[in-house]
């Protein structure tokens, strides 16, 4: 009796799993069909319109192959990625301590929060012309604009994370004579990691915008540089290559942050971005 019940339960479970697999395969087919339809439409439109407006899809694929073979794409990608990663690293290294200080010391928060909130709401790309005047045309102004766009989500999220650490965690620690540094390292840091990661996810998207704008309006290097060069010479097939690579970088880095979040801080998830 019990055995047969268990058997019918496992049978039901396998049936359900099979049904789920069918649905999954079905969904995948719809997705593939949707993408194929768009690429076909692109190909047909590209054949019908003049080349200076749109090239057929296969020419973009050929251009991708050509640009990756002569090493130009790789060099440009590396160039953009280096600026982006440098800017993000600086944002984390500066933003986390600032958010920590603002969360721990209310006077610090009073002094800095008007500037942090104000600059977060301001479109800081407007500062690019000045940054370029001060810092020149090469990597420095680009890294600076990435930092100006990417640092505020990290500061604000770190601050919000510190705010979740209540007296129920802090008082036991200080009653056991933990130093301020020990409290920061062992009590506060674990609590804020998920928040910092959620901030970093926003920062990645904003940082890429910073890189591209920097490459458009200072020395035209990297992916933004080749994009604008091809666009202004009406090379519409080549123009899509850096756009797709940029989208790939955005997708890849965001996925990486999510994986890191699960690896470093699996004990807590923050679904909502704190803003």
């Amino acid at each position: 009796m019990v055995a047969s019940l268990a058997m019918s339960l496992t049978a039901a479970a396998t049936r359900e799993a099979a049904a789920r697999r069918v649905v999954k395969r079905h969904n995948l087919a719809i997705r593939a069909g949707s993408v194929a339809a768009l690429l076909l439409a692109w190909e047909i439109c590209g054949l019908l319109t003049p080349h200076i407006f749109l090239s057929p899809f296969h020419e973009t694929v050929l251009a991708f192959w050509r640009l990756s073979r002569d090493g130009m794409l790789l060099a440009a990608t590396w160039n953009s990625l280096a600026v982006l990663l440098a800017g993000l690293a600086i944002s984390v290294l500066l933003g986390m301590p600032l958010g920590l200080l603002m969360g721990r010391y209310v006077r610090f928060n009073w002094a800095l929060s008007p500037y942090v909130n104000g600059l977060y709401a301001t479109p800081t790309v407007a500062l690019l012309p000045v940054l370029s005047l001060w810092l020149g045309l090469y990597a420095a102004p680009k890294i600076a604009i990435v930092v100006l766009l990417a640092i505020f989500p990290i500061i604000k999220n770190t601050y919000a994370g510190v705010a979740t650490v209540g007296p129920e965690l802090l008082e036991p620690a200080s009653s056991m004579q933990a130093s301020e540094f020990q409290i920061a390292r062992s009590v506060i840091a674990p609590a804020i990691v998920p928040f910092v990661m959620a901030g970093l996810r926003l920062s990645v998207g904003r940082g890429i915008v910073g890189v591209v704008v920097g490459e458009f309006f200072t020395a035209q290097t990297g992916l933004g540089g080749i994009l604008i060069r091809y666009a202004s010479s009406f090379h519409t097939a080549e123009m899509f290559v850096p756009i797709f690579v940029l989208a790939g970088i955005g997708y890849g880095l965001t996925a990486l942050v999510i994986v890191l979040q699960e690896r470093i801080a699996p004990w807590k998830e923050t679904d909502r971005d704190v803003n």
Partner: protein
Amino acid sequence: MTVTEDAALHTVRARIRRAKIDRVLIVALTLAGFLSVWEIVGHLTNPLFFAPVSDVLVVFWKQLIDPSHRLIDGLVETLAILVPGFVIASVMGVVLGVLMGRSNLALQLLDPYVTIFYNTPRVALIPLLLLWLGIGDTLKIVVVVLAAIFPVSVNVTAGIRDISGQFTEPARSMNASEGQLLWKVILPATLPYVMAGLKLGLGRALTTVIVAEFFVSLSGLGGLLHAASSTYQMAKMFAPAIILAAMGIAIDGLLTYLERRVLERYSA
């Protein structure tokens, strides 16, 4: 008993008052420090690279009362792009989000594109759209819509997923029609998600509109800023930047206020 309570209340009130005074003092002191450093550095450096804050304020005021209204016109031009673009983006974002949240077919069909667009830096599409749409207002409005629509739609889709069983099942069991379900249950319940999406979209829209104006360099606050910076007029350059900052803070504040109202009303 009451006497000690009164005394305790009194000390707490006094402490709060002192904290308030402290706060005002600290904000004033940091502001004063910031402005004086700006002023001193401005006098020490080459005027081609930086301007003291006093010059910036004088030029700002002059431009503001200037009879040709360049600065005000710039603000109006930028808002004339931003507001319609933002409204279109929020309506379309909600429609797209509801569609993808309610229908599996729509989700599977559209999700690849939403993912690609959400992850592509919006500004990278400006050169392409410039080619297709020319340098007019259409380009800028389309760019703003593209910047703001996906944060809204992604949030709405996620919101519908979150609320689905908990809210829709009871409504269904009470024989609600699909229309009633949408207007009376789903849309009110996703309103907080819409607001969160709009706040993310606002930042993206502002950034993108400025970059589009840099490109075209003829109109709006971004155009004024670009023109002033390329002729090394530092003090003049800060005027549109100040207005931009004020505009960003004001719209963000408005959205935050609306968000709070929505949360008070619709979240449990």
